[in-house]
């Protein structure tokens, strides 16, 4: 009975890992700051600029729209600020949303839901123009340990400001995110140093009870579209969620693939466990066969058993997934923060689709896993044949190299497939993933041959009975030995490949840092540290800062999102002369080596940008900017590992013309007297507490921190994969010993000691570990190459320096050998104890 609970647990963990990661990544990355989501439930349409910035002139153009009685326009600005907890060093990043309170007061939905914005005020007019006041939800207030009327300090646009908490929003259902801060529109514009700017205008229809009426909505949409200025776009609100989701689609797909690996190794465990059940019941099956029971009945019985296990395990897995999702969502949202955009964790939402996907996956994989042992059961001979000795017919196809070699070849062919271009413009390296799958599976199928080969080499050196017995059994390479190695190879190759990718990434970034960051001090707003952030510094503050007497030169950078034909990219405004002549970069194409096209703005572009828009050899890319569509043409390409959307750098003046802004995002300072670096840093820190002032070493630490954050999910899943693979090894070894019962009985009669048996079992386990390491490491090297040179280039558009972490791989080999040895001994002790 305990055995069945274990199997149910295995299915539950496999399905749970998949569902948990799926939910957590959705919750962490699809979240965005539509105020209505949090405050009043729903808006219907969004009016946006392609670059996500609306200026005052855009608002003026919307005047006619605002007079219509059928809808309400709610201008919104959003950004992030950092709350500094009173009396402590604790900081918390918050999402700041600025609303036009006048518009908000008119909303029908809000009135219905009755969310109170003030205790003492009779109506919303009273809290108009409430400068320097914010509203926070109960959860945020608890987190920051503040109450109504308290002051709260924020770091915003490089300044430290104090705001009063006007009221804590009553949120009994817990719908408000725990990082939400609301304020009046002008207050937020000032806080974020974005005067006259908006992120979007949300449209809420007046007749909210007609939201299901498609014809009505279409009519509204058409009317809105007719009056809409040309440079703005209109879309149903749900499309924005889809756009945001599309931005992180590649990230989420990667996670899905990784969680599928968790379910695959789970299936491997089920296979091993059901197989163990078949081997253990072999004499019972053989007796039934002798009595004339048909093979198909046995097959159906085992498949049904797998089905029941899959069904109940999946149901439990949905629950396990919820628990795992709670644990993983914070970690994943940190990663999204670091890589894509400021986000917060939304309440986890288990949908009926999640339940169905979980159930289907669990059942399908359980059936697949149960199929092979069920087939094996049908091949069990009648009792009289079985009585003649150890009998191991199952998985005999593992002895043939044909399928394995075929898969390796197929993987090679898959590399020829071009990447699939996703909605947001990201590339999905379909061929790369297919090749990885084929190579892992092919190597797993061939790994049994590696085991036999290695055991054959080692055997002449094995003289004692224990070593000789273990090596001879490994050299014989029974199907179950091969299956145990194959399962481990999947996990080992995956982990070895990941080791390399992460090490290559780390090595490349360190190298990039060494070359790229030659300035003395780096200054940015003290807030979101993620690569995708566009939080900026108040320009007046920057002017003030640059007056410091020790500053020789300041390389000021400004960035904003720009809209290529698909997805988004980053447009930077920089000092082009400095970037071309002095700033050190790892150049793929040095400035001037490409000829900028006449009539287009000359730009230095990142490798990601160049690959994404096909301008590695030069050309023109059209980008939507607040000033309309503009053409840029690269005259140099540099390596950049900041984001996967790519970056094009143009002259600051042009950037300001195109964007209507001069808000810097960061500045690199070159000092007159470098000996006074620390003194200057400390002086600036003291004078500008809202800015992060770092030297190269500190900046490197921050960047590597983001890097480590990014790979947390990968690490966690690799760990799950390995843990499951070792559990599979234990089960596999138990099957092997079950199948060798007669051999052990013989040895017992020959006076072979129990210690000898346990040691021999340990050596068998170690042998399996070594073979899995050799086959897995070779496959892992191929995977590393694939990840670095195909998947990374196609997904993110950047070239990494391939680093093979030899020492880690060797340690991993030692670990595998030791764990294999211990697993063998544990399995033998348990097996012996059971008998």
């Amino acid at each position, binding site marked *: 009975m305990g055995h069945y609970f274990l199997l149910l647990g295995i299915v539950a963990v496999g399905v749970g890992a998949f569902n948990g990661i799926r939910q957590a990544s959705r919750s962490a990355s699809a979240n965005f700051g539509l105020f209505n989501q949090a405050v009043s439930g729903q808006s219907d349409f969004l009016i946006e600029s392609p670059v996500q910035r609306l200026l005052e002139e855009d608002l003026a153009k919307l005047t006619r729209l605002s007079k219509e009685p059928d809808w309400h326009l709610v201008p919104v600005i959003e950004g992030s600020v950092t709350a500094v907890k009173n009396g402590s060093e604790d900081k918390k990043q918050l999402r700041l949303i600025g609303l036009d309170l006048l518009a908000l007061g008119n909303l029908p939905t809000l009135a219905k839901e009755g969310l109170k914005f003030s205790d003492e005020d009779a109506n919303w007019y009273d809290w108009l123009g409430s400068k320097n006041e914010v509203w926070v939800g109960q959860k945020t207030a608890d987190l920051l340990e503040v109450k109504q009327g308290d002051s709260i300090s924020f770091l915003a646009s490089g300044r430290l400001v104090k705001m009063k908490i006007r009221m804590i929003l009553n949120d009994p259902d817990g719908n408000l995110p725990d990082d939400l801060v609301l304020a009046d529109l002008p207050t937020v514009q000032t806080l974020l140093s974005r005067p006259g700017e908006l992120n979007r205008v949300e449209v809420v229809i007046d007749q909210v009870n007609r939201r299901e009426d498609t014809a009505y909505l279409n009519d509204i949409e058409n009317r809105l579209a007719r009056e809409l200025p040309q440079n703005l776009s209109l879309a149903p609100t749900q499309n924005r969620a889809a756009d945001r989701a599309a931005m992180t689609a590649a990230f989420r797909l990667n996670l899905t693939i990784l969680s599928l690996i968790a379910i695959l190794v789970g299936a491997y465990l089920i296979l091993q466990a059901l197989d163990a059940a078949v081997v253990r019941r072999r004499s019972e099956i053989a007796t039934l066969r002798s009595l004339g029971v048909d093979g198909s009945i046995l097959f159906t019985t085992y498949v049904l058993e797998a089905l029941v296990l899959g069904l109940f395990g999946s149901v439990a897995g949905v629950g396990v997934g919820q628990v795992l999702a709670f644990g993983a969502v914070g970690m994943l949202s940190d990663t999204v923060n670091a890589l894509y955009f400021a986000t917060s964790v939304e309440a986890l939402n288990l949908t009926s689709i999640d339940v169905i996907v979980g159930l289907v996956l669990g059942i399908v994989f359980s059936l697949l896993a149960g199929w092979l042992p069920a087939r094996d059961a049908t091949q069990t001979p009648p009792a009289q044949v079985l009585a003649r000795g150890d009998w191991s017919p199952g998985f005999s196809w593992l002895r043939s190299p044909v399928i394995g070699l075929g898969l390796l070849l197929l993987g090679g062919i898959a590399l020829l497939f071009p990447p699939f271009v996703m909605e947001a413009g990201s590339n999905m390296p379909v061929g790369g993933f297919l090749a990885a799958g084929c190579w892992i599976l092919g190597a797993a199928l061939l790994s049994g041959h590696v085991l036999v080969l290695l055991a054959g080499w080692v055997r002449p050196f094995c003289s004692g009975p224990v070593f000789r017995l273990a090596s*001879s059994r490994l050299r014989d390479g029974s199907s179950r030995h091969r299956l145990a190695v194959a399962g481990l190879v999947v996990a080992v190759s995956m982990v070895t490949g990941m080791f390399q990718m992460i090490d290559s990434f780390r090595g490349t970034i360190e190298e990039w840092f060494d070359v790229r960051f030659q300035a003395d001090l780096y200054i940015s707003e003290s807030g979101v540290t993620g690569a995708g952030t566009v939080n900026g510094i108040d320009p007046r503050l920057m002017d003030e800062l640059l007056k410091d007497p020790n500053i020789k030169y300041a390389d000021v950078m400004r960035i904003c999102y720009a809209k290529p034909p698909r997805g988004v990219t980053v447009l930077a405004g920089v000092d082009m002369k400095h970037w071309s002549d002095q700033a050190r970069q790892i150049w793929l194409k040095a400035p001037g080596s490409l000829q900028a096209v006449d009539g287009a703005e000359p730009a230095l572009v990142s490798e990601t940008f160049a690959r994404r828009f096909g301008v590695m050899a030069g050309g023109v890319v059209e980008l939507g900017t607040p000033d309309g569509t503009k053409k840029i043409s690269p005259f140099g390409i540099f390596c950049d590992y900041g984001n996967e959307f790519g970056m094009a750098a143009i002259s600051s003046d042009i950037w300001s013309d195109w964007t209507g802004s001069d808000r810097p995002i960061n500045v690199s300072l070159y000092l007159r007297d470098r000996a006074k670096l620390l003194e200057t840093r400390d002086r600036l820190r003291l004078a500008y507490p809202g800015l992060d002032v770092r030297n190269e070493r500190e900046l490197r630490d921050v960047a590597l921190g983001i890097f480590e954050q990014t790979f947390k999910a990968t690490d966690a899943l690799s760990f799950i994969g390995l843990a499951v693979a070792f559990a599979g090894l234990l089960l596999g070894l138990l099957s092997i010993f079950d199948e060798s019962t007669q051999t052990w009985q013989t040895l017992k009669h*020959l006076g072979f000691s129990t210690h000898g048996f346990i040691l021999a079992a340990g050596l068998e386990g170690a042998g399996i570990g070594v073979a899995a390491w050799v086959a897995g490491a070779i496959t892992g090297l191929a995977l590393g190459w694939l990840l670095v040179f195909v998947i990374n280039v196609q997904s993110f558009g950047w070239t990494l320096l391939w680093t093979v972490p030899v020492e880690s791989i060797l340690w991993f080999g030692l670990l595998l050998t030791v764990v294999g040895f211990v697993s063998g001994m544990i399995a033998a002790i348990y097996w012996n104890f059971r008998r």
Partner: protein
Amino acid sequence: MFLNENIKDQIKPVALSVADVRKSFGKVDVLKGIDLKIDAGERVALMGPSGSGKSTLLNCICGIEPVDHGSIHVGGQELSGLKRGELEKVRRENMGYVFQSFHLLPTLNAFENVEFAAQLVGMPKEHRLARVTDLLEQVGLSHRMDHLPSALSGGERQRVAIARALVHHPRLVLADEPTGSLDTESGSQVLKLLKSLSEELEVALLLVTHDHESTRICDRVITMKDGALLAG
């Protein structure tokens, strides 16, 4: 007859001595006070119907099954009271076992199967190799030494098993239906081999069999029924 037995006792050492051995499984008394002595070099056939307790007696003699009452001496060593490791030592040094289904180690070839038993008792390499070669020659398998059991016929496998049972100079060989899985001719060859080798090597043999023909190689036949010996 009685006098002759006593004289024999004085001349030859006792290979196996079983005294008032009782064994029950639950409420079923399987062995009901067994007394048995086998001298060095003596061959004894143990016959009896299925369920009479023959296999249990063999397991008790091997030390695999502990007895409830009585004593068993193998080569003068009392088994009861020995720890598991000591029992394993007695088994590997003093006993050889021939199974009905051969039970060769499937991953070792004929030579290695025989050598394995010699290795277990720590026989020096040179002596061991010579001894294994010699024994395999004696059982007529010098040309099949490097074959795996799966490549050998039933008779050949049983001859390897006999060589394995004798390679470490045991005092007692227990043979459980050694011809049970063989055709008549192979069975006859195996019996001849067992007889000649036990004579030559002065090894006591306890042969469990259903086959009266097999008893012809034995000095004595005892019959077991319902857990008790009927004749000796």
